[in-house]
């Protein structure tokens, strides 16, 4: 670790801190203002008479429904990704055959496929399948596009489980299945945490698939709801900012509770 002070970098960090913090402050402060207060004092001033009216207004709208939809999508995507990627990563690490390494390469190539590119064909296939405006139609492709990154991350983590442990287990007469449950899974917990964090953020914040695959209030997710709010209330800044703020609160709560593992998890995506 480096000792001593680097004033230049420190000053730069201070400036960046302001750049990050001021908009966040403006969001919170605006959401607590009345509309008159906002149009008199603008987004930067402190609220003169703080009010929760805007928040209540947003909560009284379809927002709770969007929240529920987003939660359903997130849980389903995470469950799917974990169920699919954990065995895949296991076989990628433990099976050194040609077929498996070909499969792994296909997933690596998948890293370069932008979600945006498949919006049209996915829309086409999902409408043929009769899943348009159905949360399942959003969940399936969202999960699929989490697979490449998650496979890369988790196979990296599983590789750290030392071969000696597998050999010891083999001496005990254990097979692949037991090795999976007693070694691979427990010992790559941090990697699994990373793919959970990654896929949860992808699903929670996903925009494009909900945009082109859903239309009704019953299937709307929060990011799309925010987009609609912006179209309809672009001038009602306090309500708009309240909606943005409320949309982030669930993630912020998770962040406050599990900051360390979240940060570690995300660091895991960039490689260790």
């Amino acid at each position, binding site marked *: 670790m480096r000792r001593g002070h680097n004033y230049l970098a420190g000053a730069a960090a201070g400036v960046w801190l302001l750049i990050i913090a001021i908009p966040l402050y403006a969001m919170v402060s605006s959401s607590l203002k009345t509309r008159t207060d906002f149009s008199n004092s603008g987004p930067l001033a402190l609220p003169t008479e703080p009010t929760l009216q805007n928040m209540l207004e947003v909560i009284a709208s379809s927002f709770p429904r969007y929240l529920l939809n987003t939660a359903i999508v997130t849980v389903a995507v995470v469950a799917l990704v974990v169920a699919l990627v954990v065995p895949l990563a296991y076989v990628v690490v433990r099976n050194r055959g040609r077929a498996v390494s070909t499969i792994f390469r296909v997933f690596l190539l998948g890293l370069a496929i932008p979600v945006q590119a498949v919006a049209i064909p996915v829309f086409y296939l999902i*409408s043929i399948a*009769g899943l*348009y405006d159905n949360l399942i139609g959003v969940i399936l492709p969202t999960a699929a596009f989490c697979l490449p990154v998650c496979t890369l991350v988790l196979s990296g983590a599983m590789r750290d489980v030392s071969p000696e442990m597998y050999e010891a287990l083999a001496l005990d007469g254990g097979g692949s299945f037991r090795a999976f449950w007693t070694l691979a899974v427990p010992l790559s917990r941090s990697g699994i945490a990373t793919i959970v964090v990654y896929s949860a953020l992808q699903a929670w914040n996903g925009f494009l698939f909900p945009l082109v695959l859903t239309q009704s209030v019953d299937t709307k997710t929060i990011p799309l709801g925010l987009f609609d709010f912006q179209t309809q209330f672009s*001038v009602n800044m306090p309500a708009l900012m309240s909606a943005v703020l409320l949309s982030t609160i669930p993630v912020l709560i998770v962040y406050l509770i599990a900051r360390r593992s979240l940060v570690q998890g995300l660091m895991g995506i960039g490689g260790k």
Partner: protein
Amino acid sequence: MNSTRRRVRLGSGIIATAAAVALLAGCAGPAGGDRPEGEIHIAVYGSGDVSIEQDTVDRFNETSDVKVILDPLPGGDNYQQKLRTIMGTNSAPDIFFNFGSGSIEEYVDAGLLMPLTEFIEKDPQLESAFLPSVFDGARLDGVPYGIPMRPVQPVFMFYNKDVLAEAGMEPPQTWEELLTDVDILINMGITPIALGGADKWPTLTWFQYMYDRVAGPQLIKDAVAGDTSVWDSDESHQALSELRDLIDRGAFGDSFDSVSFVGGGSGQLMREGRAAFELQGSWNYGSQLTADPDFTANSLGFMPFPAFDGGEGDPGNIVGNPSNYYSVLQATRYPDTVRDFLKLMYSPEVAQAQLATGGLPATTTAAELIPESAAPEFVQFTYDLVAAAPNFQLSWDQAYPTAKATTIHNAVEDFFTGRLDADGFIAVMKSL
């Protein structure tokens, strides 16, 4: 040698996955083709009027076994596109809001819509209760495809009475007077005309009126019918140069392309006295009423679009939407329920609800009902304007098929921001 092996493996992989897809599609297929049971869906343009439609739906559901579900799609410039996306899927609504004419032409051509002839045979009032000129807005090749469901919606000028009083001006009757007023207002530091340029269709209304006033109503009719040469005419060039003059004077300020009418921006600029005029549809009254009833009652003025000396168009001509319509999906599972629901569109309850927000109902009884309105002066003005108009031009973006709307919107925006000159604009319109 390696690569051949890989190719074989890749090939078999594709076959396997294709089989899986076929399997999946096979399972899902029948479910996709069916319409939902026990309910019919209505897609509407999500704006303030939705509350009236929701009330109507609630009233209907009290006595109906088949339940009606209202799905408001977000308003703004994307309603038609979102609807168009849905129409090709299993979620196509049984009944949907539209603008008649070109906005439903593609659906009619694709055989998706139900001709309403049989409905009308069973219940003639579905046609006879509405003003014929309005009802005909959704008639294609003589076949009726839509029932009017929102008020009559001409576009005209709104203004802030306080600002005009402060500037010592009367509402301008002619184009020349408007130009003079624009210059005076700019000197006072007020944006003369509020424009929701971000939505693009408000910008289009300026073209609709200028072309009507300068060239007369026939030009756009010929253009839509396929005679694109009319765009090259002298009148076309003159209309564009008049508009260019207005823009270059600074009549719309310099940030109109970021202001949204749908989001409430242009309305707020006028309410706050930061702008004097706005060219908007009659629905603007309801929007202003919701935002600020006092301002609407005391300071919101309205007047016809100014006359243009020496132009071909009658100063009485108007543009806008005759009304909005409910059209019916051919594949609907419950045509009888749909018909019963559509009958409510000429019910006194709907007319009264429309009058309460300053809307002029599209029914033949409208004139008698005006005194009951919450804003009789405004509704009477709308009524007189419509009744006296020699021509009521449907908005261009709805007269043309939906797929062309984006092109038209981009062209009018680019002309206003100066990225497209008159020749460029004409070239785009000829390409439609």
